[in-house]
């Protein structure tokens, strides 16, 4: 599904990714772990097309398409979803209105019919309910006044509504208490653990991986994947730290 080959990327003049190669197949959940400053968030932003993140070398194909040639909204319509580490507050724009417009823009791009207001609300209600989020919160302006945990839960509601093929979740576990972590973990499994989907979990800690069992674990250090393995690698990292393994 996703093939990243020898990816180099700069933020400003500073090289952050330095030859990253990674491949995800349908039905797989991959976890990327690594120390601060290794380039984990940069990878998420580069894949979703954030302005200012410049690819200098390498390629990324997503379901056979050249991902890097697409605009951010085209990548979304192609099935890529980025769960933000810091979901953005947008005063004045209601969640419901934004998500309906976003979903219908994606559907239009793919040549599908738009959802009516009633159809959309039904989907939104289901997803909010499954993530124990009050519908009233969905009517409020996007992330404004939400706690850190509520913002992360809102990202998962959005993921459920948009129903992407590939989710890149950037530290979706940070800022969550134990209960919220379980709800979010269940949400990721319910929405994304499917034969035709894939997930790239970017995380610092093992604890999310107790809920969302990865098929593969990779260590990202200094802009490259330095080690790959099965779920046991995460436990090893938790025990020994990054220093040993990144070397």
């Amino acid at each position, binding site marked *: 599904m996703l093939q990243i080959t020898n990816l180099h990327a700069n933020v400003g003049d500073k090289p952050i990714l330095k030859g990253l190669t990674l491949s995800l197949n349908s039905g797989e959940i991959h976890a990327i772990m690594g120390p601060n400053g290794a380039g984990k968030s940069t990878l998420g932003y580069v894949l*979703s*097309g*954030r*302005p200012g993140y410049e690819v200098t070398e390498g390629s990324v194909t997503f379901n056979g398409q050249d991902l890097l040639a697409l*605009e*951010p*909204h085209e*990548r*979304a*319509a192609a099935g890529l*979803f*980025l769960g*933000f580490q810091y*979901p*953005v*507050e*947008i*005063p*004045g*724009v209601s969640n419901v*209105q*934004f*998500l309906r*417009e*976003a*979903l219908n*823009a*994606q559907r239009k*791009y793919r040549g599908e019919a738009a959802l009516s207001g009633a159809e959309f609300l039904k989907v939104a209600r289901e997803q909010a309910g499954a993530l124990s989020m009050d519908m009233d919160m969905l009517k409020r*302006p*996007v992330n404004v006044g939400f706690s850190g945990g509520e913002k992360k839960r809102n990202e998962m509601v*959005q993921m459920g509504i*948009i129903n992407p093929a590939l989710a890149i979740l950037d530290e979706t576990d940070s800022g969550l208490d134990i209960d919220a972590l379980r709800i979010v973990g269940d949400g990721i499994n319910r929405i994304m653990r499917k034969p035709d989907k894939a997930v790239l979990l970017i995380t610092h800690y093992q604890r999310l991986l107790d809920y969302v069992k990865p098929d593969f674990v990779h260590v990202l250090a200094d802009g490259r994947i330095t080690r790959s393995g099965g779920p046991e690698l995460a436990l090893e990292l938790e025990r020994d730290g990054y220093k040993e393994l990144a070397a």
Partner: protein
Amino acid sequence: MNVPVPTRHDEAWRYSDIAAVETAWPLPAPESIVVPAGGNFARTIVQDAGSIHQLEIAIGKAATAAVHILNIGGDFGRVELNVTLHDGADFKLGAVQIGGGEQTLEIVTTVTHAEPNATSSQIVRSVLADTATGTYLGKVAVARDAQLTDSEQSVKAILLDRSATANAKPELEIYADDVKCAHGCAIGELDPMGLFYLQARGLSPADAKKLMLQAFVAGVFEGAADEEMLTEAALKKLGDLV
């Protein structure tokens, strides 16, 4: 009486398109409105053809006046309000100006609290692209005896291009000592992280901008009899700019 054409040295015309003002000069006498004691007045002004509107409103005891302005059209569009409030009167202004190309758009208000207990609220939102100029000059004057005046000005502008210009000058002249006069003023750009967030969820750059701008002007026309028409016309103009 022959009033000379204003120049840039006139504070109230400092940012105007003087060439356009000259062609419109001399202006007809301002429209004069007297709202009787206890009365209610409402007016919607859509400036979409490049013209100068001048309105004088005297609001009588315990009377109300609400003016909603959409200033969007022509090379030079200016709406001037001269409002006088008497005891316990209320004035509300909700104004949006949206300009692109080389447009010059202005809203100039003088709100005088001549007597006590009157309230006034002015909300002005400007969106400017290309090399357009948008100006709000708003003077609030509180007379010596106008105690318990409550006046509020909220002025915000968004520049879609670095080449556009916004001028905002809220001005207070207060001669009473027991009054509340609030004013806030902000000029900025759309939050790039917000735009990226919306695009990452599937909105095109133009739709993402439009959604954020729609939120920026939302609420200004609340309560206007023509709220729907004003909102639609504003959105259409925003759609042309993004």
